[in-house]
C-alpha cells in the first residue's frame, strides 16, 4: 500500500500546521445546503477566521482570480463566484483578529511591484506582522482583457517576471533600516538621515525608481507562499518561497515524493531543507465512525457534483454541450471533439482528451458508473475522510515522516465548514503531541517556525 516506513521516525517532534483556504470560485464549495452562508458578507469571513484562530491555525488564506469564469456561451453559473479584493478583505480582518496569519494570493502579471509591495507591507503593519503573499503567475490574455496592458506576457516569461517582481518587492520592504524614524519630535527631521533608502531597479520587466514608504514589520516582511506546480514553479519556490501550497497531500507516497523533490531543489540552490514549509491543500471530512465519515463524504460529493456540474465537467472533456442529458445515465456515446487549448475560461481543461476519455470509458464500464459517478470518482480526489482519531494518526504519520508540514484546509461549507475540524480534529492532534496547544508567537513567520528575516 505504501512505501515501508523507516524504522526511525525522521521527525518525531514535528508539528502540524493548519491554514484555512476560504474558497470562492469552484464547485467544491457547497451552496445548495441551507447551512451555506454568504460568500461576500464580511460576517462569513470573520466567522471562518475566528474559528481558525480558535483552532490555533497558522493562516487564513484567500485565492485570486481576476476574471469571472466562463463556460460556453457566457459567465459560468453553476458554482459560487464573486469575492472580495483579498488585501482589502484581509486588512479588515486584521482589525478583528489577533493572531492568525492573513495570506493574500496576488498575481505578479497584472500588478506592479511598487504598488503591490506597499499594499502587502501595509497589511503586514496593520496586522502586527501577520501578512503572507501567495505569489501566482496567471498570465492568460483572457484575464488580461481586464487590465491596461491586456495579455502582454508570454508563458515562458511568467516566472522571470515573478522573480524580478519579488526582487523589487523585497527591496521595497527592506528600504528602511531599523530605527528609521526620529525618536522625538525635536529631531531635525521625521526620518533619520540616511535611514530611508531608494529603490532603483532596471531589468527585463521593470524599470522603477522610488522611495519606499514603510518600515519593516514585526516579522520583517510578508511571508512568501508559492503554488506553481511545474518544474519552473517548483524551482521558483525552492529559490524564493517560505511556504509551498501544493496539490500533493492526499496520498502519502505522492506527498512524500513531492516533498523530497522540493528538498532536492532546495539543496541545489543552497538553502537548508527546513527553509520552507509544505502545506498541501485538502478537504477534511469528519465522522464519528469511519462509516459515518464515508457517508458524509458521499453526501458532500453529491452536493458538489450536481447533475448540472457533472454534465458541465464532462462537457468540457468531450468539448460537447451536454446540458439537458441525463447525468445519472451512461457516458456520452459520441467521440470527443479535439480543440486546441486556449487558456480561456479560467476553469480547468483536460490536456490529453482522447486518452482521458478512453480511461473514463474503461473505468465506468468496469465499475458500472453513471456519468455523474465517473465525474466524482475520476475527478481530482479532494480530501481526507475519517474519524478524528483516525485522521490524527494519519496526519501525525504524514508530518513525522516529512511528507507534509501541514495542510491548507478548504472547508466545503461556508462559514461552518471548519467547526468540526477545530472542535474534534484539533484536540485529537493535540493529544498525540503533533499540534500546538497555544500560539507561541505573534507573527505568521513565528507560527510557521521560520527563521527570522535577516
Amino acid at each position, binding site marked *: 500500500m505504501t512505501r515501508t516506513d523507516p524504522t526511525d521516525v525522521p521527525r518525531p517532534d514535528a508539528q502540524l500546521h493548519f491554514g484555512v483556504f476560504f474558497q470562492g470560485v469552484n464547485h467544491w464549495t457547497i*451552496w*445548495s445546503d441551507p447551512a451555506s452562508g454568504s*460568500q*461576500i*458578507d*464580511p460576517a462569513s469571513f470573520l466567522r471562518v477566521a475566528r474559528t481558525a484562530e480558535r483552532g490555533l491555525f497558522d493562516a487564513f488564506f484567500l485565492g485570486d*482570480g*481576476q*476574471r469571472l469564469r466562463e463556460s460556453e456561451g*457566457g*459567465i*459560468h*453559473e*453553476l*458554482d459560487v*463566484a*464573486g*469575492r*472580495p*479584493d483579498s*488585501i*482589502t*478583505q484581509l*486588512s*479588515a480582518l*486584521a*482589525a478583528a483578529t489577533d493572531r492568525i496569519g492573513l495570506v493574500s494570493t496576488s498575481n505578479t502579471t497584472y*500588478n506592479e*511591484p*511598487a*504598488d503591490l509591495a506597499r*499594499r502587502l*507591507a*501595509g*497589511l503586514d*503593519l*496593520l*496586522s502586527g506582522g501577520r501578512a503572507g503573499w501567495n505569489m501566482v503567475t496567471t498570465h492568460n490574455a483572457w484575464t488580461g*482583457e*481586464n*487590465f*491596461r496592458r491586456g495579455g502582454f506576457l508570454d508563458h515562458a516569461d511568467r516566472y522571470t517576471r515573478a522573480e524580478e517582481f519579488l526582487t523589487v518587492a523585497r527591496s521595497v520592504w527592506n528600504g528602511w533600516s531599523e530605527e528609521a*524614524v526620529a*525618536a*522625538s*519630535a525635536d*529631531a531635525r*527631521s*521625521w*526620518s533619520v538621515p540616511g535611514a530611508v533608502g531608494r529603490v532603483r531597479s532596471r531589468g527585463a520587466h521593470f*524599470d*522603477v*525608481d*522610488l*522611495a519606499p*514608504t*514603510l*518600515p519593516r514589520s514585526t516579522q520583517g516582511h510578508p511571508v512568501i507562499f508559492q503554488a506553481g506546480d511545474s518544474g519552473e514553479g517548483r524551482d521558483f519556490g525552492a529559490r524564493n518561497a517560505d511556504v509551498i501550497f501544493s496539490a500533493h497531500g492526499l496520498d502519502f507516497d505522492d506527498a512524500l515524493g513531492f516533498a523530497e523533490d522540493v528538498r532536492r531543489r532546495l539543496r541545489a540552490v543552497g538553502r537548508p531543507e527546513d527553509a520552507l514549509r509544505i502545506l498541501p491543500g485538502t478537504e477534511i471530512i469528519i465522522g464519528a465512525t469511519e462509516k459515518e465519515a464515508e457517508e458524509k463524504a458521499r453526501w458532500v460529493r453529491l452536493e458538489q457534483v450536481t447533475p*448540472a*456540474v457533472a454534465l458541465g465537467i464532462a462537457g468540457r472533456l468531450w468539448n460537447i454541450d451536454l446540458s439537458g442529458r441525463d447525468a445519472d445515465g451512461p457516458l456520452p456515446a459520441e467521440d470527443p471533439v479535439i480543440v486546441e487549448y486556449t487558456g480561456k475560461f479560467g476553469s480547468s481543461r483536460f490536456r490529453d482528451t482522447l486518452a482521458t476519455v478512453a480511461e473514463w470509458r474503461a473505468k465506468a464500464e468496469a465499475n458500472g458508473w453513471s456519468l455523474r459517478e465517473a465525474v466524482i470518482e475520476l475527478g481530482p480526489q479532494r480530501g481526507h475522510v475519517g474519524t478524528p482519531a483516525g485522521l490524527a494518526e494519519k496526519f501525525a504519520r504524514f508530518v513525522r515522516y516529512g511528507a507534509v508540514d501541514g495542510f491548507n484546509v478548504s472547508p466545503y461549507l461556508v462559514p461552518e465548514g471548519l467547526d468540526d475540524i477545530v472542535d474534534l480534529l484539533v484536540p485529537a492532534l493535540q493529544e498525540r503531541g503533533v499540534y500546538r496547544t497555544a500560539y507561541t508567537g505573534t507573527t505568521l513567520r513565528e507560527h510557521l517556525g521560520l527563521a527570522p528575516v535577516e
Partner: protein
Amino acid sequence: MPRPALRLAVELDGDGAHPAAWRRAAHAPAELLTPRRIARTAAAAENAGFTLVTLDDSILPPSSGAGPVGRIGAVERAAFVAAATSVVGVAPVVATTYAEPFHVSSQLSSLDHVSAGRAGWVVGTEEDPTAARAWGRPLVEGPEALAREARDGLRVVRDLWDSWEDDAVIRSVATSRYLDRERLHAIDFEGETYSVKGPSIVPRPPQGRPVVLARQDLVPAELTDVALVGGTTAAETGAAGEAAKAAGVPLAFAEIEVALDTPRESARERIADLERYSPWEERPDRLRYSGSAEGLVALLAELAAHVDGVRLLPLVLDEDLSVLSRLVLPELFVRRLATRPLPGTTLRTSLGLPRPVSRFATDTDAVSATPAALVREETR
C-alpha cells in the same frame, strides 16, 4: 427654504494638515504607522459625530522635506478603520492615474462590503511625474491627460460596480444555478489609452456604488456624488458650492483647513510654532480658518446656506480633533446646523443620497420607472 443640516467629514491622514504637524503630535513619531494609532484616531472622529473620514494617499512619500515619509496605503487603512468602527463612513483617496481601474473597483467595492455600506472614494490624481517612475508606467503629463485618466478610471470603476445587478446571486437549487448570467454584464469599456472587459469579480457593493467625492475640475459632474469645493473666502467657497450643484452634482462639500484655539494656546500661536519648521502653503481651492471654536461654528453656519457639508482638514489631529469633538460638533448638533450619521445605515443614507440602480439593470420595474423611482429603496 432652509437646507438640511450639514454633513461633517474630516481628513485623518498623517498627523494633520500642516507639514510639520508631527512636531506637535501626542505620540512618538514612529507610532504614526501603527494600527493602534490609526484605530484611535478613527474612533475619536466617529465618537465626535463625523459622518465621514477621508484618508489621503499617494505612492510617493507624504513629505519630500523634513516631515513624515511613511504612510500605509489608504485602502488598507480604510478597510482596517471600517472593521474597527461601526457608524462612520470611510473614504480613501485613490488615484487612477497609474493604478489599474479593475483593481481599484474591486478594492472600493470590497471596502463597501467590509464596512456594510460605509465606503466612499475621494478621486485623486498623481500629478508628480516621479509617481510614473515609482509605478514603472508611461508618464501621464499635463492637466488634460491627468483628467482623462481620472475620468476614464472613474467610468470603469462605476461600470464595474454596476456589472453585477443586485440580485445576480440566485442560488437556484431547482436549476442548479448559483448565478444568473443575465444579471451579469461585460462593461466593454474602450478608452483612449486602454480597454476593460468586465464584469467585476466582486458582487455589487451594498450601496450600489460607494459615494464618489471629487474636485470639479477633475471629473464630470454626472459621475460625482459629492463635489469638493473651496475658495480663499467664505463667499467664494459658498459660490463654488452653488456652482457645483447648478452643474448637477447632488451634494457639495466645502474644504476647510482648520486650526483651533486650545485651552493652552491660541491657534495663532500653534501655527507660529509649526511655521518655525516649514510653511503651511495656502491653496486656492481650500478655505482656511484659524481661531476659536465659536468662530468656526459661525463660519459653518454661514456656509450652511450654500453647501451640504464640509470636509475639515485639521492643523494637528491630536490637538484640533479634540477641540472639534468637545466644542465644535456638540454646538453644531445642538443648534441643528449639522447631523450625525445614524447607526446601522449606509453612508448614502447618512448623506441623503439615493441608492442607484445598476445602469445595466434589466429589471422591468427599474426600466419603466420615473426618474424619482430610479432609486431602489434601501433593502439592506
